[in-house]
């Protein structure tokens, strides 16, 4: 197990720049999530760490050693792929044992370690099956066992949950996080799903167009986004951004409430015209526009249905809404958050 560090990694495919100077430090044992939209370069970055791609420039350090020129098999990292990449012609036992065999681990020890990994993931009863005889969730566990079995320096996961159905995904999320904590392995986890990122990451690196926009804990990312991209990419519905006096004002939908529900003394009031409202059971999402702002800037409010009855809020009506000043975020003209809150 080791820390992973990159210094100004750039990767170009011909004219296209996939990774545009990423410097990232992942301390030993940390669960780092790379979050970004599809095509932002996060998977390419992960493939550079494990050595499947060679960076155009920049340095990669694993455990403090420069590994730019070291082939994948000598880096000691394990990777779990989106479609798992299990070997279809091997049994589960053979699949898990493969990374050990390539390293010339003695047979007795292979048996012991396969046993250990399969116990850890509760797949002991599947060892003699082939991948095609397994369900999606079982395959995912086998892939994880194969990745963990050789106690890698770092564990790289490339959207490992995207092939699971929604229900399984929730439990798999918890499991991966649990195993990571139990084994204590440095983990880099790539996803475009912010729920996975928020729920699993010790820290999140938000990536867009090959660059890191912000690195921070989930609460830092959510509460204090570094720029408008992070603000609008994280959160569902995303942060409201409205232009005011040449700069931008941002506030989360759940902080945009009817005025009499705001308890703080310091707040900013808006007149809000309701256009549409969606009842989602645990919340009500209300879409509308603010008086005195551009009518194209749609603002959303996330209201607790228990407190706001449907007949209170109808399309076309104007209501006084407010945001606590502590929950207001300011962005300058370039989209960067200004120091003043």
């Amino acid at each position, binding site marked *: 197990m080791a820390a992973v560090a990159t210094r100004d990694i750039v990767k170009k495919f011909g004219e296209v720049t996939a990774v545009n100077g990423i410097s990232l430090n992942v301390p030993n044992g940390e669960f780092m999530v790379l979050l970004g939209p599809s095509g932002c370069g996060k998977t390419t970055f992960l*493939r550079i760490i*494990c*050595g*499947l791609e060679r960076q155009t420039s920049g340095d990669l350090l694993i455990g403090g050693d420069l590994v730019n020129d070291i*082939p*994948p*098999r000598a880096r000691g*990292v*394990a*990777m779990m*792929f*989106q*479609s*798992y*990449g*299990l*070997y*279809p*012609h091997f049994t589960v036992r053979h699949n898990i044992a*493969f*990374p050990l065999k*390539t*390293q010339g681990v003695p047979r007795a020890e292979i048996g012991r370690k396969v046993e250990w990994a399969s116990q850890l993931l509760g797949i002991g009863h599947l060892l003699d099956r*082939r991948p095609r005889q397994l369900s999606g969730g079982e395959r995912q566990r086998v892939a994880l066992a*194969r990745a963990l079995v050789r106690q890698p320096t770092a564990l790289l996961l490339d959207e490992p949950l995207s092939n699971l159905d929604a229900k399984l995904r929730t439990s798999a999320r918890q499991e991966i996080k649990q195993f990571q904590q139990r084994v204590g392995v440095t983990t880099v986890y790539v996803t475009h799903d912010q729920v996975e990122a928020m729920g699993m990451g010790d820290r999140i690196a938000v990536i867009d167009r090959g660059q890191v926009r912000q690195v921070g804990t989930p609460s830092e990312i959510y509460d204090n986004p570094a720029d408008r991209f992070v603000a609008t990419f994280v959160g569902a519905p995303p942060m409201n951004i409205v232009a005011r006096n040449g700069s931008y004002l941002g506030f989360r939908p759940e902080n945009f409430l009817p005025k009499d529900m705001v308890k703080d003394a310091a707040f900013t009031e808006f007149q809000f015209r309701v256009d549409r409202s969606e009842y989602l059971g645990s919340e009500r999402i209300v879409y509308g526009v603010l008086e005195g702002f551009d009518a194209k800037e749609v603002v959303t409010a996330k209201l607790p249905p228990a407190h706001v009855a449907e007949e209170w809020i109808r399309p076309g009506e104007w209501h006084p809404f407010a945001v606590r000043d502590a929950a207001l975020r300011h962005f300058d003209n370039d989209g960067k958050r200004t120091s003043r809150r």
Partner: protein
Amino acid sequence: MVAIADSVPKPVARFRFILDRRNVLGSIMIAPAILYVLLLVGVPFLMAVYYSLSAYTIYDPSWSFVGLANFEDVVQDPVFQQTLYNTFIFTFGSQMLGLILGKFGALVLLRPFPGRKFVRALVILPWAVPIALATVAWQWMFDSLYSVINWTLIALGVVTRSQAPNWLGTPHLAMLSVIVVNAWRFFPFAIVIFLAGITAVPQDVLDAATVDGAGFWRRNYQIIMPMILPIVAIGLVFGIVFTFTDLSIVFLMTMGGPVGATSVLGFAGFQTGIVSGDVSHGAAISLFMLPVLFIVVVAMLRFIRRREV
């Protein structure tokens, strides 16, 4: 009452939608293929069985049942034994050589390089050129006097003019020659089979193997080869069946010579049954292919099925 009578549905023309019925349409569509197989494969096959059990020759075309006498004659004939042996050597030799060339060619053609399309088109040529034409060209290359191969070997100083091999005149070299020509004809097919197999291996699996510490050779022989084995085996079944029953290369290049060294089952059956007119013995020789091929094909298909589970 009148109203009730009127509401009885009129029967729609019975055969109007007959082609919409799956079983009817299916039967009509498959009928030409079944007829083709029955008439052009089934009938000749039954006729061969019939001739092989009779004393039929073109000089005495009478039907007289002789049981398995023809097969007994054939099996005891040392020339036939040699022919059977030759057929195995010819088939498995050329398939092995073809597969090795095919694997190599597929690996070369897998990665993009300038002119790859041209090379791909070129590689398909041996398969596309009419076999008669190609064999005549090869015959000249192996010719005892004008061999371009010998000319090259002499120019390179490998052999002297007096020692130059007589490719088609020496038994072992003649067998090697027909094997080489058949492998040359087969290897584009092998390339296509290997290319299809290798490109079907998911990139994730190869990447996983790389990260798991497998180098080029281990990826090739522990991941790719076992994964494409079922496809290659199917290709090999085709190759074996075609080669085992083939007579064209031998017929055109060596006429089974020298002294029967390259005679194969198809050729011997043709010579005995058609050229010499001994139809019953010719049929018996040809029918020897059947059990051999049956065993080979069943064994390989069983193997493929086991691999696929």
